[in-house]
């Protein structure tokens, strides 16, 4: 921006998407959304939007029930079981954050309280082996009780202070269970860093749930019931009051809505759900270990709720599926390198294809392919053979003729590539119009190089890098989440 000192340039016109739409309430926003667009994809989206929540739930359950019949046990455990667990956790958090608008960063502690309660009451720790029909209500009550206490003490705290107190409550919980480990009845209460191992399997009236399949279906039932309960809660008087509280606590209070009681109720509701999930989780793990309730788990649960969109029940399911499956899919133990490659390139090509008008993506992709061959030819002609003699991990050797893949170590070549990519992305995003299109070509090529040279060999790290990038990207493009309603600012 060029300017004379003292007189700043007028700010840029915000684009239509970014501008806060003053005076538009949520109903108008929703109807506007329905009105737009054509084409088969849009029809499908409309069908989805117009079908009532219970029908969506039915569709989900019908699909989810078939999963165990076409996956192997490992995939069922990793993709099925944990998706459902995250969905259940997301549903609980959705009440606190999505419905009532309370920023609860200690949610994961309630999850932990559930797990540890189960561990104390159904293991050899103190020789108590109560069945699940007794421990689950107790665990939920314990978590809810802590929720009440926290809710009472935090009811005076506004906005961010609530977030801070709850965040540190979560931290304190991790340190208490993992480090402090006070001695009770001659034994460390929480087992310290080792946690409490060897828990009983979930046992209901003598019927044990041990196999992955049994646990999966049990969780499916739990999730279904939870979603149903939330659906009705959301439709009820309390649900409407929560939403009022979320939109404007002050106005809600003026309307004689009992704000404090509703806050505590939301807290307790979320805590109880988290407690329930905790018991199931502990039983799946067969152990309660404090590091499992750390901030990174909290972030994943938040990501689940946010991706789908705050306050949307269906959104939680979408979020759980996308987040859990993406994260796990990228892990190295998931042995499908070719599929990973195709998914990675496919996603990029898809994103590029969204550019308008139609010839831009074609030009960019064609340019990238040509650019790659030129660079490869130059490198091959000017440097030692070892610079281009590498092969991509797992097959696809034709790629080696396009991408520069060195063998052996070439100093910090990989690191320069990666830093170069980050810089290139930043530059591309700052440019406009055709310049951006031109900058896209080397950026895309660099992306391919980084993927082939670094990321394919570090699946676990890659998963977290892409997870972080996805969170940033999603928030910038669609802060309300995939299925959330555009947030409307009322002045």
């Amino acid at each position, binding site marked *: 921006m060029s300017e004379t000192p003292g007189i700043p340039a007028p700010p840029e016109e915000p684009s239509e998407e970014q501008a806060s739409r003053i005076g538009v309430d949520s109903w108008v926003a929703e109807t506007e959304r329905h009105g737009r667009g054509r084409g088969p994809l849009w029809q499908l989206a409309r069908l989805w939007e117009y079908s009532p929540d*219970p029908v969506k739930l039915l569709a989900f359950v019908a699909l989810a029930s078939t999963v165990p019949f076409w996956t192997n046990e*490992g995939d069922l455990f990793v993709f099925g079981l944990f998706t459902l667990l995250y969905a259940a956790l997301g549903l609980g958090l959705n009440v606190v954050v999505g419905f009532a608008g309370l920023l609860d960063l200690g949610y994961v502690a309630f999850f932990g309280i559930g797990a540890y309660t189960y561990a104390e009451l159904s293991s050899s720790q103190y020789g108590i082996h109560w069945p699940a029909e007794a421990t689950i209500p107790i665990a939920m009550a314990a978590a809810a009780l802590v929720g009440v206490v926290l809710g009472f003490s935090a009811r005076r705290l506004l906005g961010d202070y609530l977030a801070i107190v709850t965040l540190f409550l979560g931290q304190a919980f991790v340190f208490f269970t993992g480090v402090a480990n006070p001695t009770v009845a001659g034994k460390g209460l929480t087992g*310290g860093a080792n*946690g409490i191992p060897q828990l009983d399997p979930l046992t209901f009236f003598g019927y044990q749930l041990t196999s*992955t399949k049994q646990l999966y279906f049990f969780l499916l039932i739990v999730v279904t019931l939870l979603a*149903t309960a939330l659906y009705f809660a959301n439709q009820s008087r309390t649900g409407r009051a929560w939403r009022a509280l979320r939109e404007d606590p002050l106005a809600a209070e003026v309307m004689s809505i009992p704000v404090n009681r509703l806050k505590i109720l939301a807290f307790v509701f979320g805590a109880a759900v988290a407690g329930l999930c905790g018991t199931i989780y502990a039983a*799946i793990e067969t152990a309660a270990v404090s590091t499992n309730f750390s901030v990174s788990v909290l972030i994943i649960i938040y990501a689940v709720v946010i991706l789908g969109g705050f306050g949307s029940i269906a959104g939680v399911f979408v979020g759980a599926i996308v987040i859990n499956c993406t994260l796990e899919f990228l892990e190295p133990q998931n042995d499908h390198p070719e599929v990973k490659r195709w998914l990675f390139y496919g996603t990029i090509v898809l994103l590029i294809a969204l550019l308008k008008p139609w010839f831009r993506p074609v030009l960019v992709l064609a340019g990238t392919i040509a650019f790659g061959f030129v660079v490869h030819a130059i490198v091959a002609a000017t440097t030692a053979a070892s610079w281009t003699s590498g092969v991509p991990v797992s097959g696809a050797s034709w790629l080696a003729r396009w991408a520069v893949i060195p063998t052996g170590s070439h100093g910090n070549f990989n690191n320069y590539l990666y830093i170069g990519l980050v810089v290139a992305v930043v530059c591309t995003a700052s440019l406009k119009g055709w310049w951006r299109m031109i900058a896209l070509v080397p950026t895309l090529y660099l992306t391919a190089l980084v993927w082939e040279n670094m990321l394919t060999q570090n699946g676990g*790290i890659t998963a977290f890098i892409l997870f972080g990038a996805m969170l940033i990207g999603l928030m910038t493009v669609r802060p309300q989440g995939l299925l959330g309603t555009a947030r409307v600012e009322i002045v």
Partner: protein
Amino acid sequence: MLKRIGALAVTGAVTAAIVAATLGGTASARNNAVAAASINCKKTVTIGVAYPQTGPVATLGANQWNWAKTAMKAWNKNKKNKPKIALLQGDTQLAGTTPQALQVAHQFASNSKIVAVTGPAGSQEMQDTASVWKSASLAPVSGSETRVALTRGTTGTPRETTKGYFFRTVPNDGQQGDNVAAYIHNTLKKNKVEIIDDEEAYSTGLSAQVQADLLKVNAHVTTNHVSQQDTDFSSVIDSIPSGTQVIYIPWQNATQAQQFYTQLHAHGGKEILFGSDGTDVPGTFTGNGSYVSGFPVDFSSTAVKSFAASHGGDPETFGIPSYTSVIVNATAIKTACKAGKGKTTRNAIRKDVPKVQLTTAQSLLGFPVKFLAKNAGKWQGPGDMGGTAAFGIYQIQANGSYKRVG
């Protein structure tokens, strides 16, 4: 109208879930099928390597993975070795979260390509995943799990599940603890010892062991704790009782030990540091005059030397037992394949693991590998290595090299 649809749909959903649950409960589990499937020895077979690729101790994981890759290359280079092996990584995030270890176990178990497992890295991980491995007829061979209870114990202990389904290429904590306590008391002749653990299972176990041993000989022992995320030890250093002669730091993280050494000396402390196998990393823990108990690695062997040369001079000794583990697995696969005439199963391989014997040159550990068939000595049990498998005591020299002193 909407409400009625809603109620109907919800009832439908719940019913569907319950029906599916009953159906699912009766269907047969599939892991057994993978476990029993026959393995074609003509093709390359895959060994799963479970180690922490991410998380706070990713450094150690990197050591293990680098050595596992070295083992794979060494095995495949020799024309006599058949079948050829490939490795598949699993990220268990040790000290991060256990669900990762469980997820790795489940995915390895269901992956029909995987015929044997190296790792996981932590005893807790093994304990939590034992039943998964067992159901899939896999016997992990770990290069860093030292908890005694995994190989020796009575009913109700982890030992029940791991019997025949767990082996390790490291000596265990019991042996190490006794060695260290004896060395401090008998050889160094010191009796004021501060023991600092890093709060995770490996460290607390070893600390308790050494503390008990030292108390038996009437040494004066004080304790403190740090966490694996600590980088500032000044308050811990400030609170070391005056007159302390030796500080025992059985930590997983050699860099922390080096940091502790640096900060201790910056604070003017003169106590002798004594580390464990986790801190046995030449090139990282280089505190002059400190001691470590570690695997008796043959630093003069060409394999170790060439590894160090290609890794910036750092032999990354923490990963060497993982090398051994891969070789043990590969040898077991070879034996099973020979016996099965080109075909074998996971179960056959698992049963061949305890029969594997490696020479000192093959194992790189400084002693030959031979697994015990029954309990031996005070601490060892089936799954442990017998014979001369023990920890050595090293003193760190001024130039950072390790000299064997006991």
